[in-house]
C-alpha cells in the first residue's frame, strides 16, 4: 500500500474496514511522519504517542472481534490545544496554562474517543485563539508546509499545518472569526465552521462564547463531512447547542462530488472582493465561479452592505466576551501561579502577577479592549452598538439567502505572509479575517476549500457560506467545486506542495 499518510480519512477508513491495514499501522505511520517533519513544521505542542497507539490497538482488537465500529474508527486525529482533553496537557497556546492537565474531556473529545479515533496530540495555536498567524502562541511559531518562512494562518495554524504536512488526516479546529477557514486557505486544506450550536462548545476554552465554534480540518470535503457528523449534535451540557439532529452531510458531499449543481443559486458577495484582495486571489475566485457555472449553478451577485462594519463590531464583541471569559485565569485554582517578588502576597497581587506574566501581548490587548468596551458609560456606545451591527449583519444574510442558496467569497484576502510581517500591526493582522468574520457574527456555517495557487505559488481559499442549519449545502457545493478543480489540476492541490525535508 502506498504511503498511508497521503491517504484521505475516507480512504483510510475503507482500508481499515476491509482489513487491509491496521489502525496501529496507520497511527504509527502518522507518528513517524510527525517525528520526521514536525521539528520544522511545529504543528504539535504535545504528541500523545502511547495513548494514540493504545487506542489503535484497542480498535484493531475490537475490529478483529467483529465489533460494529464507527466508520472513522482507527483513523488518527489531531486536536487543537484549545479543546480540553482528560489526561493530556491543554494550554490553549498560553503560558498561563503550562502544565495543566484537565480532569475532564470536552464533549467532542468524548465523541472522538467513543468512536475510537486515536488522538495523535494537541496542535499549536495563537494564544487563546487570538490571532491569524499562530505567531501569538507562547510556544513558538508553526510553519506553513508550503513555505517554512511563512505563517500557517491562525489561530488554528497547528491543525491546518498538521493536515497539510500529512502529519494527520484529520484535525479539530475552532473558529471565532475565521480560525478554521483562514488557516485552511493559506495551507491548501479544507476547514468548516459549522452553524453556531451545531457542535458542542462544552470543553472548548472560550474566547468569545457567542462566536466560538469547533469544526473539522481536513484535506478533502468528504473527510470534513465525516468528521463533522461525528462531532456534531445536541449536547445538554451546552445551553447554546442546537436541539436537533446533525444534517446528513456525508450524503451531501457524495452527491456534490458527482458534479451536478443544476438549480443551485450561488451568490457572490459584492462587499467581499475588490480592493485589498490580492490579484491572484481574485483571479482564482473568478475561475472557480466559472467552474461552478459549468457544473450548472446559477451565479448571482448579492449585496451585504453592513459587512463593512463587521470587523469593527467583531473587535468589540469578541474582546468584551474574552475579557470576562479569561478572568478565571488568575493563579488561584489551576495553571500558572506567580507571586509578586516584593510586597505582600495577597490574592489580588498574586492574580495580577500571574496574569501579567502568563498572558501574552495580544491577549492583554484584547482583555483591555474588552474591559473598556464593557465599562459603565461606554457600554451602550461600544458593546451595545456592536450588537446592533450584529443584528444588521444577520439581516443582510437573511436578505442575501432569499436570492441565493449559498454565498461565496475568497476566504482570505491574501496568501500566507512571512513571519513578523504583520506582528507589529494588529489592524493589518485583523484584516485577514474580514471575509470570515460575518459568518461568526450571524452564526451561519462556512467552509473553505483550496481553489488554486496565487501568482506567488501559495494556496488560495474559496469560502462558501450557507444559512444557519443548512450546513449540508456547504458540502454539496464544496464537493462539486473540489471535484471540478481536481479535474483541472489532475489531483489534490497538496500534490503541488514542496516536499518537506525528512529529519
Amino acid at each position: 500500500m502506498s504511503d498511508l499518510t497521503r491517504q484521505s480519512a475516507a480512504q483510510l477508513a475503507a482500508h481499515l474496514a476491509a482489513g487491509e491495514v491496521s489502525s496501529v499501522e496507520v497511527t504509527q505511520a502518522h507518528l513517524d511522519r510527525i517525528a520526521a517533519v514536525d521539528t520544522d513544521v511545529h504543528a504539535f505542542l504535545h504528541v500523545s504517542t502511547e495513548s494514540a497507539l493504545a487506542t489503535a490497538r484497542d480498535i484493531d482488537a475490537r475490529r478483529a472481534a467483529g465489533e460494529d465500529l464507527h466508520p472513522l474508527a482507527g483513523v488518527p486525529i489531531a486536536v487543537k490545544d484549545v479543546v480540553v482533553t482528560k489526561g493530556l496537557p491543554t494550554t490553549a497556546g498560553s503560558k498561563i496554562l503550562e502544565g495543566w492537565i484537565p480532569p475532564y474531556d470536552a464533549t467532542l473529545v468524548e465523541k472522538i474517543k467513543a468512536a475510537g479515533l486515536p488522538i495523535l496530540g494537541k496542535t499549536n495555536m495563537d494564544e487563546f485563539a487570538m490571532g491569524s498567524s499562530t505567531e501569538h502562541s507562547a510556544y513558538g511559531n508553526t510553519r506553513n508546509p508550503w513555505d517554512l518562512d511563512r505563517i500557517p494562518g491562525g489561530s488554528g495554524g497547528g491543525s491546518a499545518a498538521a493536515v497539510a504536512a500529512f502529519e494527520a488526516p484529520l484535525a479539530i479546529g475552532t473558529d471565532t472569526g475565521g480560525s478554521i477557514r483562514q488557516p485552511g486557505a493559506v495551507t491548501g486544506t479544507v476547514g468548516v465552521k459549522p452553524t453556531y450550536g451545531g457542535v458542542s462548545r462544552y470543553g472548548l476554552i472560550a474566547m468569545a462564547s457567542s462566536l466560538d465554534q469547533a469544526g473539522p480540518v481536513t484535506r478533502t470535503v468528504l473527510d470534513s463531512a465525516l468528521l463533522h457528523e461525528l462531532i456534531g449534535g445536541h449536547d445538554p451540557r451546552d445551553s447554546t447547542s442546537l436541539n436537533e439532529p446533525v444534517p446528513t452531510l456525508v450524503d451531501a458531499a457524495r452527491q456534490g462530488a458527482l458534479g451536478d449543481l443544476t438549480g443551485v443559486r450561488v451568490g457572490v458577495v459584492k462587499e467581499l472582493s475588490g480592493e485589498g484582495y490580492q490579484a491572484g486571489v481574485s483571479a482564482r475566485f473568478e475561475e472557480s465561479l466559472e467552474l461552478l457555472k459549468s457544473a450548472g449553478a446559477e451565479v448571482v451577485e448579492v449585496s451585504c452592505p453592513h459587512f463593512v462594519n463587521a470587523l469593527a463590531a467583531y473587535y468589540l464583541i469578541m474582546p468584551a466576551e474574552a475579557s470576562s471569559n479569561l478572568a478565571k485565569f488568575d493563579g488561584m485554582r489551576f495553571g500558572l501561579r506567580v507571586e509578586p517578588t516584593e510586597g505582600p502576597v495577597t490574592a489580588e497581587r498574586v492574580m495580577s502577577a500571574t496574569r501579567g506574566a502568563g498572558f501574552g501581548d495580544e491577549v492583554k490587548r484584547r482583555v483591555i479592549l474588552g474591559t473598556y468596551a464593557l465599562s459603565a458609560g461606554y457600554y451602550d456606545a461600544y458593546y451595545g452598538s456592536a450588537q446592533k451591527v450584529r443584528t444588521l449583519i444577520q439581516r443582510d444574510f437573511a436578505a442575501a439567502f432569499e436570492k441565493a442558496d449559498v454565498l461565496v467569497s475568497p476566504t482570505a484576502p491574501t496568501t500566507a505572509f512571512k513571519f513578523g510581517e504583520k506582528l507589529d500591526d494588529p489592524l493589518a493582522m485583523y484584516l485577514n479575517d474580514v471575509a470570515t468574520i460575518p459568518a461568526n457574527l450571524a452564526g451561519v456555517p462556512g467552509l473553505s476549500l483550496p481553489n488554486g495557487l496565487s501568482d506567488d505559488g501559495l494556496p488560495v481559499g474559496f469560502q462558501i457560506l450557507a444559512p444557519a442549519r443548512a450546513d449540508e449545502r456547504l458540502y454539496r457545493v464544496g464537493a462539486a467545486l473540489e471535484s471540478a478543480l481536481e479535474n483541472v489540476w489532475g489531483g489534490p492541490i497538496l500534490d503541488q506542495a514542496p516536499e518537506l525535508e525528512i529529519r
Partner: protein
Amino acid sequence: MSHSAHVDLVDYDEAVARFDPVIGIEVHVELGTRTKMFCAAEVEFGGAPNTQTTPVSLGLPGALPVVNGKAVESAIKIGLALNCSIAESCRFARKNYFYPDVPKNFQTSQYDEPIAFDGYLDVELDDGSIFRVEIERAHMEEDAGKNTHVGGSTGRIHGADHSLVDYNRAGIPLVEIVTRPIEGAGDRAPEVARAYVQTLRDMFRALDVSEARMERGNVRADVNLSLRATPESPLGTRTETKNVNSFRSIERAVRYEVSRQAAVLDAGKTVTQETRHWHEDTSTTTAGRVKSDAEDYRYFPEPDLVPVEPSRAWVEEIRATLPEMPADRRRRLQGDWGFSDPEMRDVVNAGALELIETTIAAGSSPAAARKWWMGELARAAKTTEVELADLPVTPEQIGQLQSLVDSGRINDKMARQVLEGVLAGEGSPEEVVVARGLEIVSDDGPLLEAIDTVLAAQPDIVEKIRSGNLGPIGAVIGAVMKATRGQADAGRVRELVVERIG
C-alpha cells in the same frame, strides 16, 4: 478595631420622634434544590470542603453553565407568592469582579431582566395589623464560595496569614428579593423589618423552596436605612448593613442605625453612603467599604446561556398548585377554631399550629387541642428541654386521648396519667389505658359494693343525709372514689348514694 471606638448615638425614641426612617431590604434565600444553579454538583449541608463541585462550579476552562429548571420553578413560586409579574423572557448577566471565592471571577446573576417584578407582601405585625411591603423584584443568581481567613484574631481577612476557599457553596442557587423603599413604618421600622423577613422565611418553608434556616445562612438579609426630616422630605442617604442573619439582629440593626444616623445628622454632618458590618456581640455596626456609584461590574448578558422563557401555561400551573400562604392560613384557622388573638399568637409562637391542626383532625375539639398543647405538653417540653414537635407523642395520639375523655371512658385526671404513660413510651393511649387499668367503672355492681362498704362504716353520715343534710354526701363520694382508685364516674356515684339512702 474600629468598632470599639466611641460612637455618638441618639436615644431611639427621640430619634424617631424627629426623623422619619425609610428602610429597604434585600433578602437572599438559598434554594433547596438537589443540584446547583448551573451544574449537576449535588448540594448538601456540611460536606467536606470542595467535594460538591464539578468543572462548572470550579470555573475550570471550557466548562459551561446550564440553568437548573427546578431553581427556575422555585423562583417562579416565590415570585407568584410575592404577587409579582413573571417575565415572559429574562436573561442572566455576568457580574465581573475578581475575588477568589468567585471561581470564574464573575458571578452569573440576573441583572436588568429579573424573573419576577412588581409585587407586594402583606406583613402581620405584633398587634395583628397588616403592613404592605412593596417588592421591586426577585431575581435568580448563584452563590459564591466560602472564604475562611486563617491566622488573624478576628476571622476577618485583615491580619490573617492565609485564606482557605470552599467551593461547595459556589453555584448554589439563590433568589434575591428586593423591596422598594419601605416608607410609613415610623417608629415601627425595626419591627416591620423583622416581621417582613420572618414572613418571607415562613413563606419559603410553606412553598417548600428552601429549608430557610437562618442559622445555616439559608436566608440572609441586607438592611438599607436612611433618615429624613419628615415623610414629605426627599429620601436621605442610606447605609446598607450586610448579612444580618437573625430576626432579633434585624430589629436591633435597624434601631442602631436609626440612633447612629440621627446623631450624625444632629451633629450637622452627612451620612456616608456605605456598606456597614453588623456585630452580633456588641449589637453595633461599623463602616465597611464606601459604596460609590463608580463601582463597575461591567455587566453584560451571559453569552453561554439562552434566555429563560417560562411558558404562560407553566406559570399558571405553578400558580394553581401554590400552597396557602402562612398568614392566610393562620387567619383561616383562627376563624375556624374561634381562638382569640392572644391565644392564636401564643399558639404560633409556641410552634404548635400544625400540632393543633393535626390533633383536631384526629378528633379533638379546637379548645381541647389547644389546652393539651399549650398546657400539659408545653410543660413537658419545657421540663425535658425539647421542642413541642419533638416530644415522644404524636398529635394523632393526643386526638385519641381526647376522644377517650369525650366518650366518657376516662376523666381528665386519668387522661393526664395516660399521657404520662404515652410520654414514658408505654404505647398508645388505648394501650396505656388497658395496661394501667385506667378506665371509669361504669358498671353499677362494683360501685354499689363500694358504696355499701363506705356507708356501713359510717352510719352517722347516713343518718345526717337521711335527715336532709346533704353536706356529707361529698365525703361519701370521695371515699368511694378512693376505694375505686379514681376510676368511678363521680356523677353516677352521687346518684347511687342518694338512691341507696333515700
